[in-house]
């Protein structure tokens, strides 16, 4: 069995082994192996290519951009996604604009350990994909499975544009798979995680598993719920969503991020517009609440969508 975290480590290992242009830069990622141990053993295995950075998110991203222009393939680790606000300017104004302005590519990958865990609190729990997706020039991935953690990280580095890689902390050690995949869906394609006919749940990241659990629970009520894992939120695979909604006529979008302008807003805007004729009832969304992410696990469980809340929302959708 291999965990989501081990899959990330294996992907980094393979990338470093296969491509001399790849190097890693981030806080405590060297011999210490990173705050979560995603880079464990890599510094020893690839001397001089897994570098501890100062506590300087802005410089970390800025340096990665400079190295990318020089033909390298830097992979940057933010210790938590939440700290990427301190490197925000370099990401959205420098990396994201470089190709458009200069025709020079900027193949950096910024790894953001994302999402909530119990006791994480307001500054160690954020899901920032919508922030980055709003800016032109970035590709934003939110792998929700062990297989995707592995294959999407490999692809992220292969892409010639900057990639924001939102890996989910809650899945790091919880999620396990039999083996690493040999092949994968192309980047930009959503995946039907579960076939259904009565309604479509569109989701991504850790919410894939809450949604699947919800779908399972609804089986006893006689419902077959389709679950679509977006995988990449920018670009967003509208076609797969529309095809699913064409089958089910109902859609709920579940996202751990905040509601206003989040992934779910973009999904609803697209599906409601392009799938206007396909929807039997209005599309719905379920998000984290519009407050900072609370520290206490009891509050946290009520703040983000859970399988129970998804069941309730889906029932509501089905009964509309």
């Amino acid at each position: 069995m291999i965990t989501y975290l081990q899959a990330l480590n294996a992907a980094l290992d393979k990338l470093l082994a296969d491509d001399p242009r790849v190097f890693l830069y981030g806080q405590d990622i060297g011999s210490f192996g990173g705050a979560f141990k995603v880079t464990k053993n890599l510094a020893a295995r690839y001397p001089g290519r897994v570098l501890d950075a100062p506590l300087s998110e802005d410089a970390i991203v800025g340096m990665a951009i400079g190295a990318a222009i020089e033909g390298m393939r830097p992979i940057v680790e933010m210790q938590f996604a939440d700290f990427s606000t301190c490197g925000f300017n370099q990401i959205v104004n420098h990396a994201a604009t470089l190709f458009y302005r200069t025709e020079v590519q900027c193949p950096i990958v910024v790894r953001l350990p994302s999402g909530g865990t119990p006791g994480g609190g307001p500054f160690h729990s954020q899901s920032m994909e919508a922030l980055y997706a709003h800016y032109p020039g970035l590709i934003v991935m939110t792998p929700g499975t062990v297989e995707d953690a592995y294959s999407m990280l490999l692809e992220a580095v292969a892409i010639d544009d900057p990639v924001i890689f939102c890996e989910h902390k809650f899945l790091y050690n919880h999620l396990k798979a039999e083996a690493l995949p040999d092949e994968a869906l192309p980047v930009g394609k959503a995946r039907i995680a579960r076939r259904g006919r009565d309604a479509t749940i569109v989701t991504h990241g850790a919410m894939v598993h809450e949604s699947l659990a919800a779908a399972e629970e609804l089986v006893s009520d006689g419902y077959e719920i389709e679950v679509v894992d977006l995988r990449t939120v920018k670009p967003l695979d509208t076609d797969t969503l529309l095809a699913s909604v064409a089958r089910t006529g109902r859609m709920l979008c579940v996202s751990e991020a905040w509601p206003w302008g989040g992934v779910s807003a973009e999904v609803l805007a697209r599906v409601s517009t392009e799938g206007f004729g396909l929807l039997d009832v209005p599309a719905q969304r379920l998000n984290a609440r519009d407050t900072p992410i609370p520290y206490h696990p009891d509050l946290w469980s009520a703040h983000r969508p859970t399988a129970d809340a998804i069941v309730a929302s889906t029932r509501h959708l089905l009964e509309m």
Partner: protein
Amino acid sequence: MLLARILEEKLSSLYRAGAIKGGVFLGRGQEALSVSVGSHLRKGDIFAPLIRDQAGRMAFGDTVLDTLRTYLGSQLGSMRGRDGNIHRGRPREGYHAMISHLGAMIPLVAGALLARRMKGETGVVGATCLGDGGTSTGAFHEGLNAAAVEKLPLVLVIANNQYAYSTPGSRQFACANLIDKAAGYGVAAHQVDGTDLNECLRVLGEAVQAARNGGGPQFVVGNLLRLVGHGEHDDASYVDTALKESPLGRDCLEVCEEFLVEKDWATTKEIADWRVEAKTEVDDTTTKVQREPSPDPAEEDWTALSERRFAEELSEA
């Protein structure tokens, strides 16, 4: 200082027992420096402690009770379960609740001091602490520089514990000594052996007084070692043994106790009694807090705004 140590030992054992859901980040070995900051501040001053400032917090008025409430997520704690562990404070009392982003509290204290000046208050001091790693942040630089331009009574204390998480100073900065940064901001510089309480009290006393007297920002570097992991999940195996065995690795509490005994200001017995007393207070308070209710999600007022009229009902969990 002793109470802070005992309390932190309790937090550590509560962590190991799984009684605390989030992380636990302790200040063992840094108490002398921290307490010296808190104890030179007065009521009406401003303090924004950081990760390893349990001792300084208590000297500024924080309590065993509120510490435990915050760590254990009691609804009665100052953060009401919304934030936890070191992210606590009572900003209305000048005791600020840190956000995690390192360096961010410096401009906040500067701004509070600017406000005091505008309101005509004099003789106020604002202190905040940061680690060696935190000096690499843009926030540190911008905040200290802006405070210097305004010549604000800010005391910025750097606890140079030689590591930022696992990262040693050699990967964090290239100056010979962190104190060399002061001149670049045009602020007064102080350096101190952070393992020696007497020295810490003296130097912080000078720094706080200089700020109070209109000397502008004071940059204090205390050299020491943290005698514990970055957090309780961390065994700190990366810490250099030579450093541990150097004077930096001394336990400030032991140094202090030896001093007290040597000077005949306290007997070993008395110190042991204080310890028991502290332990009793901490244990009793823990028992009490563990019986307190957790925050109730159903009663939670799910809005981030103070002005209720702007709160929106979106389709949420």
